[in-house]
């Protein structure tokens, strides 16, 4: 398998990042804070006040290293990228497939199957680990019911022949899944009652939103590396400026992100005082704990697991890229279906 190259997250305010021979060098004032060989990079993500030299930018563009700018809370601002990689034939096929209703539904269905399957895996893991604890019988009964209902939603996806009905089933599954999500949180400080996105009104939702943003970035650059157009999706509606296909591809990985968030909370890597509450009732993660999160995220990407379709051990960080490959090969007619990543 392909070597996993790193995404570097720069969130030191007023950092100056430039190129020194084949290295990326980060300075604050006159002090060098980091030095990394550029060939090990896959992406640069900058939070807030970070400046990048034009030479580094050009070098990144030439070597397919994507630079993403976010504001200091993680909201997307801009992206710098070299000439579009991949080729026009694949994109054309992608667009034609997207315009075909039946074909789009078929792809969207496989992607959502992956998502529901993986949501169920999250519940099953907790049932396996905690299900037989004496004092938690009500909780495990609820988890077991939710697990069964998810299985049914998963089966019912097979009969859906329109995007609307697919979305309907997915919505049902989300309600079931997030309905028992609180049971998966083993730290009483953290409360969760429903998924709220705009804005996230509690720390758990803030974490989910932040990590989904990171995931979408990774999916987006995986698609771009593969030559697919991240803006043209099958499940998510096309809307200017929206990376529909990156959002489509992210669906099957969201449950893995959920579990990542749960482990940060349950292992007490983060606590309530790591969050800031704003006057509008929304929550964000403070700067220092965000560093902790990003480091944990990098570690998580190095973990390996077996990809059931490739039957090969792969690192978590490569999964979006592998799935983009499967999608591209399917669009080109090498195989008769897209196969999502099934988290066993």
């Amino acid at each position: 398998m392909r070597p996993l190259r790193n995404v570097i997250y720069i969130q030191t305010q007023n950092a100056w990042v430039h190129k020194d021979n084949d290295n990326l060098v980060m300075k604050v004032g006159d002090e060098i804070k980091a030095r990394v060989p550029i060939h090990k990079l896959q992406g640069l993500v900058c939070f807030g006040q970070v400046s990048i030299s034009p030479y580094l930018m050009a070098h990144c563009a030439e070597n397919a290293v994507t630079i993403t700018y976010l504001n200091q809370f993680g909201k997307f601002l801009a992206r710098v990228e070299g000439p579009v990689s991949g080729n026009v034939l694949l994109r054309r096929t992608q667009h034609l497939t997207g315009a075909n209703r039946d074909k789009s539904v078929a792809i969207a269905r496989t992607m959502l199957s992956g998502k529901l399957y993986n949501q169920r895996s999250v519940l099953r893991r907790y049932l396996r680990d905690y299900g037989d604890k004496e004092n938690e019988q009500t909780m495990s009964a609820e988890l077991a019911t939710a697990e069964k209902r998810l299985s049914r939603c998963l089966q019912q996806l097979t009969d859906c022949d329109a995007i609307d009905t697919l979305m309907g089933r997915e919505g049902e599954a989300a309600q079931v899944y997030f309905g028992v999500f609180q049971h998966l949180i083993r730290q009483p400080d953290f409360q969760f009652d429903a998924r709220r996105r705009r804005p996230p009104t509690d720390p758990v939702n803030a974490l989910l939103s932040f990590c989904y943003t990171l995931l979408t970035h990774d999916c987006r650059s995986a698609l771009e590396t593969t030559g697919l157009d991240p803006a043209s999706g099958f499940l998510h509606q096309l809307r200017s400026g929206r990376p529909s296909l990156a959002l489509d591809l992210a669906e099957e990985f969201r449950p893995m992100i959920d579990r990542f968030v749960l482990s940060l909370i349950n292992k007490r890597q983060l606590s309530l005082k790591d969050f800031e509450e704003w006057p509008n009732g929304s929550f964000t993660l403070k700067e220092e704990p965000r560093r902790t999160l990003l480091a944990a995220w990098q570690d998580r990407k190095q973990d390996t697991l077996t990809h059931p379709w490739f039957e090969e051990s792969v690192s978590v960080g490569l999964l979006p890229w592998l799935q983009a490959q499967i999608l591209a090969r399917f669009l080109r007619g090498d195989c008769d279906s897209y196969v999502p990543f099934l988290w066993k």
Partner: protein
Amino acid sequence: MDLEPIYLSRLQHYLYCPRQFALIELEDVWIENQFTAEGKVLHQRVDQPDKQKRGDIRTVRSLRLSHSTLGIEGVADVVEYHRQPDGTEQPYPIEYKRGKPKSHRADEVQLCAQALCLEDMEGLAVPEGALFYGEVRRRHGVDFDEALRELTLQTIQACRDIVQTKATPKAAYQAGKCRNCSLIEQCHPQDFTRPASAWLAQQLAQD
């Protein structure tokens, strides 16, 4: 309408594996691995166009070649012009290759295609040339006989068909070949020959 040019260097990809040719030509797939990187270093030395004359041999490096009707083009590493007793010059193409002589004829075909271009450009017969192998550091003479010319023309036609139909041939896995292929990561020769929808249905049905 002019034919889309097919590059001389790509003919060897077709002969190695038609899918490899299509991945590079139609899909822009290109992974620089150790093999191609070494090849590039070796080529950088000969890629600076220059001319030299020593005795009866005039040497031209990095000569651009094309053929008016076959729609092929590329650059010859080295063409020697051997002065004949009658004063004419006989072109003699030489191509540099890393490694050692191979069992398949990809290198010969690429060289023969250069000869076809030289014949077309110079209006002279080019009966032979040579391959220089980096690993054994030896010249290996090549006769452009009928059989090799026929194979070269067939290869050009087969490449042309792929470019025109824009269809990437499916993978046919051959362990020895695929393991040495720089594109194996993108090609996945073993995975996409399995039925995907049946596999997925079965996984989802399992509890």
